């Protein structure tokens, strides 16, 4: 096996996002998968603890609010994907809604990266919205947080 120095690593935001997805899986996937997911959650927790300490990152109410938002948007998107199978008659509508939720999640991720001092143009997630409702949702939820971020 060739040893090499790792040059590209996940950001703290990536790890937090993954933690929220694994938490969904731990509850909703069949029990046979859960031990592996529990192990992944432990690893994510361990890496995040180390990164917060090494980088002297400050945990704030705003970071926790953004984390909660990403966490809930991922769960709502998961539910949309379930509905794609369960309710084929509303497939397109559900898919569009899921796209909007993903756009909103990316906005929240970008703010998290900024708050955690790890933002860069390359890491910026693109967010686009495909429905009028999605645009309204974005304006409603993110305007407040982006204003504070830019002040």
């Amino acid at each position, binding site marked *: 096996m060739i040893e090499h120095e790792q040059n590209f690593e996940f950001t703290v935001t990536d790890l937090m996002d993954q933690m929220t997805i694994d938490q969904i899986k731990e509850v909703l996937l069949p029990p046979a998968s859960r031990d592996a997911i*529990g192990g992944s959650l432990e690893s994510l927790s361990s890496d995040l603890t180390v990164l917060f300490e090494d980088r002297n990152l400050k945990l704030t109410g705003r970071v926790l609010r953004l984390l909660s938002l990403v966490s809930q948007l991922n769960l709502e998107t998961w539910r949309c994907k379930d509905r794609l199978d369960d309710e084929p008659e509303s497939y397109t509508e559900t898919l569009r809604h899921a796209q909007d939720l993903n756009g909103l999640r990316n906005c929240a991720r970008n703010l998290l990266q900024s708050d955690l001092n790890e933002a860069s143009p390359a890491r910026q997630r693109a967010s686009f919205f495909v429905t009028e409702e999605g645009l309204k949702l974005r304006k409603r939820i993110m305007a407040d947080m982006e204003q504070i971020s830019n002040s």
Partner: protein
Amino acid sequence: MVKPPRSIHPSLSELLDTLTVYQIKEIMDASNSESYAEESRAIESDIDDLLEVSDIHSIGDFLRLVVALSQVNLHIWYVKEEMQKYPERFDECTKLGHQLNGIRNQLKNRILTATQGVEQSGVRTNLGTDGLEGWRLSILDGDPG
């Protein structure tokens, strides 16, 4: 007459719980969105103050607890939606809501423990999940401390 300062304040776990519920309402209830945003800003500020004096041993585990609490509250929201949508399933949904509330309270107690903020009056006692099957959150495994 000078009024004495208030002496009872919400714990960090109560603040986080409320924040995650407002987050749901801010998305689901467009008509009152600004009100939830305003309250959330106030909660953020109080959380900042409490985090300053909290001694969190494992930030990663603390984040896991917040993620789990946030999602359990959203699952409870879904159960309440089901309850309204399907009246014939009212009893079934009521029971599931009660069971999930037990998990939610376990998570809140763990947050109190993780932040060294345990005061007996703040500890939740309604922890039972009454035979709930299929739900496992590994962050609740082990000694509750």
